[in-house]
């Protein structure tokens, strides 16, 4: 799918699903799901090679949701892409279902269970290394949270990826600048973030994580020709699309009452019209 308008419509539907899940019995990590919705839309509908009917297709690109708490986003994207029926999203965190609030391999399209932060990039290193040694063209995409970069193991993986010249490995940082307790720069400073990745030997791109055309253009240039892994630092807004959640730390985990759910949906659609 190359049409930016059509991709925006997909992103809108994914955000609607996230809000429905947030209105479910236990709520969800809505803020960090909404912030990365445009990124996953572009990856799953424009960039990655995949077959929804054949999740283990040998030539697929791999995707790891390192920030596993954004399960509402991953499930919504996989369902929209046809990995399983959209109706199943209503079973999120409901007894007897398979949609745990951190992804597991019981869900088609999930390569690895995630949730404990700081594992995903190492998984990506292993997958990209195997593909490289086997001379396969599969690319590996890993979505990390920005707060997650405080985990030391991420930097072990960052070091390893450039050491092994894993040019088919692409990390994306959902740079929404908020973690549970507040602004990342006031909790455990991450800046100068691009410089840090660059100094570890990575090719660094910075994009507006809500500009679908810019995301499409950024990924179209990958992989780099420089034998370096690439990180796309996507500047985003936590809770993006719903004004009363945007850029607020309390959007990290949200349980919407029916009233708030209606209000959130109407804000989402109003914002959509404004942008289109």
């Amino acid at each position, binding site marked *: 799918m190359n049409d930016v308008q059509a991709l925006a419509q997909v992103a809108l539907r994914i955000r609607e699903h996230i809000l429905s899940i947030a209105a479910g019995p236990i709520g969800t990590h809505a803020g960090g799901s909404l912030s990365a919705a445009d990124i996953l839309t572009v990856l799953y509908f424009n960039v990655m090679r995949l077959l929804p009917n054949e999740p283990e297709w040998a030539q697929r690109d791999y995707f790891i949701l390192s920030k596993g708490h954004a399960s509402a986003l991953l499930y919504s994207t996989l369902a929209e892409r046809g990995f399983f029926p959209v109706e199943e999203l209503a079973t999120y965190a409901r007894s007897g279902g398979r949609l745990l609030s951190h992804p597991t*391999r019981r869900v088609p399209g999930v*390569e*690895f*269970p995630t949730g*404990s932060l*700081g*594992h995903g990039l*190492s*998984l*990506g*290193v*292993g*997958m990209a*290394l*195997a*593909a490289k*040694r*086997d001379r396969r063209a599969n690319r590996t995409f890993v979505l990390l949270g920005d707060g997650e970069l405080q985990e*030391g*193991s991420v930097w*072990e*993986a960052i*070091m*390893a990826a450039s*050491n*092994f010249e894993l040019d088919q490995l692409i990390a994306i940082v959902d740079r929404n600048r908020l973690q549970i307790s507040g602004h990342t720069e006031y909790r455990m400073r991450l800046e100068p973030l691009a410089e840090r990745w660059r100094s570890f030997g990575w090719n660094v791109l910075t994009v507006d994580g809500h500009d679908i055309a810019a995301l499409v253009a950024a990924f179209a240039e990958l992989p780099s020709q420089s034998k370096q892994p690439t990180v796309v630092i996507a500047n985003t807004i936590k809770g993006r699309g719903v004004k009363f959640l945007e850029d607020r730390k309390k959007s990290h985990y949200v349980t919407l009452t029916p009233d708030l759910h209606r209000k959130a949906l109407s804000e989402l659609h109003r914002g959509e019209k404004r942008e289109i």
Partner: protein
Amino acid sequence: MIDNAISSDWATLYAGAAGDVYRRSLLALAQQDARVYCLDSDMGGLETSFAAHLPDQYVDLGIAEANLMTVAAALARMGKLPFVNTMAAFASARAYEQVKIDIAYNNLPVRIVATHSGLSAAHLGPTHHAQQDLAAMRTLPNMTVLIPADAAETAKMIAAAAYLPGPVYIRLGRRATKLVYQCDYDFVIGQAVQLRAGHDVTIVATGAYPVLAALGAHDQLAALGISARVLNIHTLKPLDVEALVAAARETRGLITVEDHSILGGLGGAVAETLSECFPTHIRRIGISDTFCDMVGDHQELVAAYGVTPRHITTVAQELCLLNLPGSWLVAYKV
């Protein structure tokens, strides 16, 4: 004459530390199967023993054990058979979460070969000792836990574990120890090896010095007229429940001997199992619930915790007295 010839070949074949025999076995296995990968974490020597021969099947992940374990999981998911090389202290504590989630939860065929286990790091001290690794590993679902008693058993173990479907933890020491096995024998994962028959007490041991001490105790007890069965538990998980229940039924009690904390390892596993299946008298010999910062070599350190023929003999004598109908000790205790 023929027996001597075989024994002599055997001793030559399995000369050196278990770790050296493991490295030779790993290279032979990897030369036959390109899926076998050697993952290094600056262990020293693997660059010559392995990488020089098979550079495409070797990955050095540096001094970064968390990343090491997760990369191993991903390689296994991609169809490789990774052997992860690190020390027991780091495999079981520093990188435990990666082992738990990425390897064990996904039930991936990663072989974690952990050296310097128990107190074998000796003078390196408590930072490098691993007295809790068996407790940690055996409580992970899907994990198989193996402990060779000598270099020969290590070679058999690598061959037997190579194609198990799930993850395996293989616990090695550091320096060479005496051979427990003098000739060929059947090694089956999950089946204890009865090294000595006996009907009065059973000594259940795992690892080099504990098994050697158990064999020494067997001889000392024999001189005292006590017949001690000796079981080598080379597989802590899955545990050979049948052999343990038979020992509980046929002898007066069991003594567990291990180079590990008495909490949660072999002693823990045997006590848990038999208290449900066939309650009997059990005595645990191993590292008491303390950090060991004494200076000494491996054998001296485990000896300080009672892993000696003499101490096992004393405990076995007590068990025999305790359990004799009408014995003075029973009367005294009442």
